[in-house]
């Protein structure tokens, strides 16, 4: 037994070393950082302990802008992408020929480098001095005036941002929803059809309640993912997100840590903790709502 004890820990040792050094220790340290006021990276000194870092971050106009951007992205992309994914998945489940081909195509955005494909989206939407870009061409066809989506008005930038986020998160949602729909027992459908139930009613009364756990899961992970939006924004608007007015909370954390405005790990930590608290709160609210709704279904 003694020998076995030692052996077990030995097998765990590499994982524990890595997790300890790069997860547990940093987790404690980030709270320490966030309370050290005026921390200096070079000399590793600080003036005082307190809540100044949090107050600084909460009063920083860049952070407030990032907060607003992130909330807008979350509020727009989560319902829209879940809704479209649900429509597509229901459609996919209703047909047989070509289903596999469609599923393969729909999954492609998942296996692409977001920075690389973001560049393609930028080119599609961008308007330069000598070319209006493809999207503006389409707008012209429908009689509209051209807009620069990358360096133009705020709503236009937010539109591309949300459009790209939805494009990126769609594969995961479609995949989970189609497999959830496929796992619903066929007997329910057959029974309903014998009773002459309409397709829409079948969807509302059988499919939707049966797949509701997956939908709630997708909404919750969607919220979490959208709150941590960053790379997609860089892909569209470049690394200087503050100048573009399109920074996100995570972008703010990294900018504080490193980059032109960087070197402030204390502010970065405070912002990261604020983000964590927001995500935690919203996840708890989501869980409560989903529990209540699921109870209503059954």
């Amino acid at each position, binding site marked *: 037994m003694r020998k076995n004890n030692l052996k077990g820990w030995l097998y765990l040792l590499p994982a524990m070393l890595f997790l300890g050094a790069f997860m547990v220790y940093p987790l404690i340290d980030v709270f320490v950082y966030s309370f050290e006021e005026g921390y200096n990276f070079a000399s590793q000194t600080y003036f005082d302990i307190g809540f100044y870092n949090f107050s600084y971050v909460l009063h920083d106009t860049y952070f407030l802008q990032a907060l607003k951007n992130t909330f807008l992205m979350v509020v727009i992309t989560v319902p829209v992408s879940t809704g479209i994914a649900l429509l597509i998945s229901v459609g996919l489940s209703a047909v047989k020929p070509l289903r596999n081909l469609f599923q393969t195509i729909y999954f492609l955005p998942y296996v692409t480098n977001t920075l690389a494909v973001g560049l393609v989206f930028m080119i599609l939407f961008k308007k330069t001095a000598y070319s209006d870009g493809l999207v503006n061409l389409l707008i012209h066809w429908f009689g509209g005036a051209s807009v620069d989506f990358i360096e133009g008005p705020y709503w236009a930038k937010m539109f591309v941002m949300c459009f790209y986020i939805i494009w990126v998160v769609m594969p995961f949602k479609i995949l989970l929803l189609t497999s959830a729909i496929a796992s619903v027992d066929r007997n329910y459908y057959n029974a309903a059809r014998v009773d002459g139930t309409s397709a829409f009613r079948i969807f509302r009364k059988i499919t939707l309640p049966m797949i509701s756990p997956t939908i709630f899961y997708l909404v919750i992970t969607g919220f979490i993912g959208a709150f*941590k939006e960053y790379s997609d924004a860089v892909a569209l608007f470049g690394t200087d997100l503050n100048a573009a007015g399109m920074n996100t909370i995570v972008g703010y954390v990294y900018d504080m840590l490193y980059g032109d405005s960087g070197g402030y790990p204390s502010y970065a930590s405070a912002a990261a903790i604020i983000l964590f608290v927001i995500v935690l709160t919203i996840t708890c609210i989501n869980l409560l709502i989903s529990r209540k709704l699921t109870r209503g279904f059954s």
Partner: protein
Amino acid sequence: MNTSSQTNYEQISKTSARQKRAVHVLVYTGLALWAVMVLFPFYWMLLTSVKSYSAYNGERFPRFYTLSPTLQNYADAFTTVPLGRYLLNTLIFTAATTALMMLVIILAAFAFARLKFKGRNAVFTLFLSLMMIPNELVVITNFATITNLSLRNTFTGLILPSVTSVFYIYLLKENFAQVPDTLYYAAKVDGTSDLKYLFKVMAPICKPTLVTIGILKIIECWNAYVWPRLITDDENYYLVSNGIQEIRENGFGRENIPAMMAAVVVISVPLLALFLLFRDKIMTGVSRSGTKG
């Protein structure tokens, strides 16, 4: 189910067949529409990458096809900017990270699944609770740690923080636990050591799961952006994500979009090829893990 209800059901399904066809047309139109949305950016990058610089810039309104495709942009992508370097770096980073991670998680999963020792369940619970820690919270200190160890702009600094994944340990442990105990005791009777049993018996049996985890990690590494950006500012250590950002901001004199698109194609192809090869493994793996959100 008796015969009368059987015929009744068939009748109903027959009458609904015509209505069904109309619905099918609608459904296929919708599905095709989204397929075009997904594929179009890929088509556009491919198309732009074979347009010549002058042809592209001569189009006030972009054209949907080209009659004189050229591969010049691909040559430019490899000669004007160090795209080959970025690819090689990413390959080294991906291979080393994935290999190291596999070793670490196999050992840990084996300890949790098969070995009996004091405190095992407590540690396992602790591991599981670590799954809830978001990366954004720990990256700040990791950045400080790696900087203080003077490991910036090194592969070691790039690789170390990404070596463990609690989730994959959990996934693998579940799979290991399904391997019957009798095999283990038989091997013990034969005098096989635990380590030999693990790599000669257990790992081969669980190969499908190992392959899935490996592929998911490769995808993650290939697309890594945030950590490499923090930890490298020397172009010689850029991975493809940072490389493409560098190309966008400083390479090719900004406006050479066809050459940029050629670079984008080169970066996208390896993962797309991997996906087409391991389609089912990747899709089941992702639906089980659901990490990327």
